[in-house]
């Protein structure tokens, strides 16, 4: 049901993108709703990441980008968990706007590849090669372990018997 609903809305968004004329119909409204969902989610995610980074600077100092590492880990876990829970047959029924709010919006904005790349580059510029290598290796391990654990946990919840959440 979820995937059918999803592909239908994707098809309408695709049609809206292809049509040259402005035809304010259902497709355009769907598209506006999706962009609003992504924008709001990303706003919340980006601000949360900034707060995590400020907290990490205050608590752990500027020597290592713990804040970005923590945000990327937590965001990867959350997207793995949520994707599993809202898959067809999952415990949570979510429409495409809710899915995009959480996944493309919040998780997308909470995590960041550009700041990760910049921080690695700055470590290299400071000639701190071992720290740079550690940052990349720890990040890759954290991202993939987190998304995998989130997904596994989500499927375990899906298989639990009982009332719908």
């Amino acid at each position, binding site marked *: 049901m979820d995937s059918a609903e999803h592909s239908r809305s994707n098809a309408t*968004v*695709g049609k809206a*993108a292809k049509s040259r004329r402005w035809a304010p119909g259902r497709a355009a409204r769907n598209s506006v709703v*999706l*962009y609003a969902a*992504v*924008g*709001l*989610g*990303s*706003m919340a*995610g*980006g*601000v949360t*990441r*900034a*707060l995590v*980074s*400020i907290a990490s600077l205050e608590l752990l100092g500027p020597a290592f980008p713990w804040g970005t590492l923590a945000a*990327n880990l937590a*965001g*990867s876990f*959350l*997207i*793995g968990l949520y*994707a599993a829970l809202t898959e067809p047959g999952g415990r949570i029924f979510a429409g495409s706007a809710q899915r*995009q709010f959480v*996944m*493309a*919006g919040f*998780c*997308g*904005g*909470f*995590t*960041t*590849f*550009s*700041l*990760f*790349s*910049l921080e*690695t*580059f*700055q470590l290299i510029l400071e000639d701190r090669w071992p720290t740079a290598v550690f940052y*990349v290796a720890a990040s*890759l391990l954290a*991202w*993939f372990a*987190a*998304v*995998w654990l989130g*997904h596994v946990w989500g499927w375990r919840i899906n298989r639990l018997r009982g009332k719908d959440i």
Partner: protein
Amino acid sequence: MAVGTELLLGLIWIAVGSALGGMARFFVSGLVGRRIGETFPWGTMAVNVSGAFAIGAAAAAATGGVVLHEPGAWGLAATGFLGCYTTVSSFSLQTLALARDGDWLLASLNVTLSLVLGLCAVALGFAAIAAMIHGA
């Protein structure tokens, strides 16, 4: 300005950049995905590599004191917009999906290509703007 007001103002700049950056990612990754196809996550790679290039350029401009060296401007453009324009969560999920499908070659290609191109892009962006500043 009081510390609290300064922090709040900084967060407002970041919030504005974040909303715009997320929507720009949604647009660009969707466009690339529709044009090239969704079997390999080219859309996510396109935003991540272009965002890495842009943040390298932004960092060089900020270091040179040309633009973006003020905290509000950096928050809007870098922490907010470029931070949210790129993503690790979709990258992780798409790599996991490739691995779960047994496409280990494509999964490792996605990881290697994203890392190498991302780091090259940030260095290129930085070098390009640094050269312009020092050449001028």
